[in-house]
């Protein structure tokens, strides 16, 4: 068996001794690895020189030097645990993730590798928000980023770019893409919104899909509308400590992101003086696309 970097032989006993994941996390990782091309030890070869040139300001984010980024992570990592993503990132990607954290967006909070496979699966299945740090509220489906304990809401798929360097590359390149730039640079309208998709291959290269993972809510008798409605009903019943009247939602890994896209969600900044990318997440290929 190889070590985490894939360079040295280690014994099974050593693997167990160094295992920090709980059994349910191991199960979710294993299932994802068996059913998709993802390998949790594979690292993305980041274009570090390109990432070094990333400028946060055109992305609607505050200027962030490498020193600013290191300070931000050091000061906030306890209350913003998604910043632990930088522990596995190259310095250039760390700066981009810290820059994103200084903005209003949630891409790095719900769609980056700090969200484990288990958390991703539970978001798609039970509407548990990985951004919610209170475990009781998370189990009760309370959103972690909104005010007033609003209920969390999720598409029938929860996805992430699992590698922090790949995530930072997708963020930096996406913001420079002409389609996303057009949405960010248009005249400011506080009510305007835009969702744009760009092929994963254009952003992360032909193997970029291997760094994306996701869990798909299984349909009810072939009906995704019914699956989402049942999931909502199930989660509401559980939160109210009632017996659900619908079956427990089921999910399965997205088989592959090959031929897929990355969505960029552009919305006004809270400061109401421009736009920023509020969310970014991968989608598998739309099989219905012609």
């Amino acid at each position, binding site marked *: 068996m190889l070590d985490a970097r894939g360079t040295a032989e280690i014994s099974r006993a050593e693997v167990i001794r160094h295992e920090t994941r709980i059994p349910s996390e191991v199960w979710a990782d294993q299932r994802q690895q068996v059913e998709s091309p993802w390998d949790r030890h594979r690292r993305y070869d980041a274009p570090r020189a390109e990432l070094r040139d990333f400028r946060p300001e055109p992305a609607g984010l505050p200027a962030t030097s490498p020193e600013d980024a290191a300070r931000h992570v050091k000061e906030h990592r306890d209350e913003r645990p998604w910043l632990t993503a930088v522990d596995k990132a190259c310095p250039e990607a760390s700066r981009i993730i810290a820059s994103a954290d200084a903005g*209003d967006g949630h891409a790095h909070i719900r769609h980056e590798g700090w969200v484990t496979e288990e958390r991703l699966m539970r978001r798609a299945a039970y509407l548990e928000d990985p951004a919610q740090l209170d475990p009781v509220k998370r189990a009760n489906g309370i959103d972690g980023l*909104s005010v007033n304990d*609003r209920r969390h*809401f*999720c*598409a*029938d798929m929860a996805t992430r770019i699992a590698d922090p360097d790949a995530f930072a590359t997708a963020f930096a390149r996406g913001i420079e893409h002409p389609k996303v730039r057009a949405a960010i640079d248009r005249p400011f309208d*506080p*009510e305007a*919104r*835009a*969702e*744009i*998709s760009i*092929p994963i*291959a254009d952003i992360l290269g032909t193997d970029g899909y291997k760094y994306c993972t996701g869990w798909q809510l299984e349909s009810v008798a072939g009906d*995704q*509308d*019914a699956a*989402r*409605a049942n*999931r*909502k009903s199930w989660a509401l019943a559980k939160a109210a400590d009632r017996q659900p009247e619908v079956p427990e939602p089921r999910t399965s890994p997205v088989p592959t992101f090959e*031929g*897929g*896209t990355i*969505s960029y*969600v552009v*919305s*006004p900044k809270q400061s109401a003086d421009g736009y920023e990318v*509020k*969310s970014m*997440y991968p*989608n598998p*290929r*739309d099989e*219905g*696309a*012609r």
Partner: protein
Amino acid sequence: MTAFYYWEQHPDGPFATLINVATSYCHPETDYDAYDALKRRAKRESDPEMDVFKSELRAAIQDPSQLPGNELSRNVQYDDGSPEAFLRRLWRDLYGDEPVEA
């Protein structure tokens, strides 16, 4: 062309504006203020895109079978249980008691 959204795949397709606007303001990944922003846009006196949206919303409510496949569901990701329920909610929230029939 590799694109995820219906209106990117079919910019001139039926109900492209309805699905685009509904996705941009109602999808779970958009910001928390987006639905209220859509309500404010619906009240504007001059907003050509919203005029098309309203017209397509009206047509979709009157005959949901005209919607392209499952594109409304796939793009918007509503949890109302059916396109009809989602469209009716949208109309009620944006246009109140105004009759759907023009």
